[in-house]
């Protein structure tokens, strides 16, 4: 007795391959659409964070390593010998979590431990931790040589937003 076509399709090897191929095609199409749709509509997703500096700084881009070293105070001078005045976000802020993992390559807790080591061995103190994006912007606007970071959607005020190269 012959089986109904749909039965053969659901059990046969060729039928399963076809179904998998169709599902894969849909998945890939979906991913492509997901990626290109904001571009097609001119809506690039906002970055998770933006690095800002005092408006008087001539720089337009900076490397991730430089930003990390400046926040950790391994590097304390800009290329023109001006002092870097870094500022950090609150420990419990989402932007700090993202920034720590992506730029410093450590968790917020690990960075905190790093500063405990520095503080109690007399090797330095952490940058000031400010309350909000607005406070960071004010600090950077008012301190020549300042460097900070804010949420991707926050207003940067009169500060200069730098491109970060990875």
């Amino acid at each position: 007795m012959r089986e109904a076509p749909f039965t053969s399709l659901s059990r046969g090897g060729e039928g399963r391959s076809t179904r998998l191929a169709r599902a894969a095609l849909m998945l890939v199409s979906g991913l492509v659409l997901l990626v290109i749709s904001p571009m097609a509509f001119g809506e690039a997703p906002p970055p998770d964070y933006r690095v800002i500096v005092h408006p008087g700084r001539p720089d337009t881009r900076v490397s991730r390593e430089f930003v990390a070293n400046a926040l950790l105070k391994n590097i304390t001078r800009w290329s023109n010998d001006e002092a870097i005045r870094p500022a950090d976000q609150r420990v419990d802020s989402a932007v700090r979590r993202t920034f720590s993992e992506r730029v410093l390559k450590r968790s917020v807790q690990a960075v905190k431990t790093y500063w405990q080591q520095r503080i109690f061995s007399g090797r330095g103190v952490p940058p000031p931790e400010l309350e909000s994006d607005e406070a960071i912007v004010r600090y950077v606007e008012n301190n020549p040589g300042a460097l900070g970071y804010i949420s991707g959607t926050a207003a940067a005020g009169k500060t200069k937003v730098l491109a970060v190269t990875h």
Partner: protein
Amino acid sequence: VFCLVFAPARADAADEGSNPLGVEVHGFVSQGFMLSSRVNYLTHSRRGNFEFTEVGLNVTKSIGDRLSVGMQLFARDLGTIGNYRPQFDWFYLDYRFKDWLGLRAGRTKLPFGLYNEQSDIDSARVPILLPQSVYSITSRDFLLAQTGFELYGYVPLGPVGAFDYRLYGGTIFIESTTFASPDAHVNDIDVPYLAGGRALWRTPLDGLTVGGSLQLLKLDIDYTVSDAFVEGLKAREIVGPDFGNRLTYKIPAVLWVGSLEYAAHDVTLAAEYSRWRTESRIRPVIPIYPDSDQTATRWYVMGSYRAATWVSPGAYYAVWQNGVAGPNTRNKYQQDLAVTARFDVTPNWLWKLEGHYMRGTAALRSALNANTSTATLPREWTVLMVKTTAYF
């Protein structure tokens, strides 16, 4: 101190206007408990002991962009060590000419290995005790800090990472009780030289550091030995009739350590291998105490992981071998398997729990164990520790 620790979370956050003088004040208070089996370790720990306290308070201030000054007062009690006597843990004036060249003068912590500078800082690590094979609490007098000068710098190397160096020279001050014994009074301890350095290569692989440290020092200890001791030597004709009470004990030493650390995201893995070569010379010569050279091999592997914001388990295995192993030489080695956990209760308060399984007696002291020779103390023993620290 506790008011500052338990103040609202912003107490440690400097805002634009909250620190107009630019003076940073930080501190910590630690209290521990130690319980050991079969032997007393570091303190009279067999029945449980709370003599495991550390307190520190520091003040630092930047004067302009390049000059800074600072000092830390520290007191501790660990069995017979410390007894709450406050002392300057470090003090300095620091001038940073460039990122690659800074000069520091004063009493500075010695950069020996990855963690020597943190040996007093409970909040800066997961374990209660750093691996004692390399960071021995009982060697704190020699290894913690020096008074003199230091050159340091950080040199970015572009695609090959960065180079971090420290070079120092000066002296150390050692309490005379460190080398005292019932038959010998210490008149003076002189350190003719102390010099060393550390170089760390921050590799392009984020979190991976490779380094090496070297330290050279010499101790000259001037003793007055007891009349009974001298008469005993004369009676056995070990020394001549004109032998006096004054002795000089000279100990030149060379210490080095190779270091490897991977610290990225929530993981920290570290391994260090060290050799300490010490010579002993007593003048005038006493034949039963001949000149000797000894090389100690010390190493450990350690790992920790921040499983959640509030808990970080860790473990290490540390080995310390003095001279050549042989039969009945349990006091020549120490093997330490430690399991530890750190619990961060609040951003400024933590608890730690730690267990050690020990093999060997090199880390033990006869004086804490009814003057029993360390060669005959139990070879296997355990330690349980609990510690809490508040810091700001």
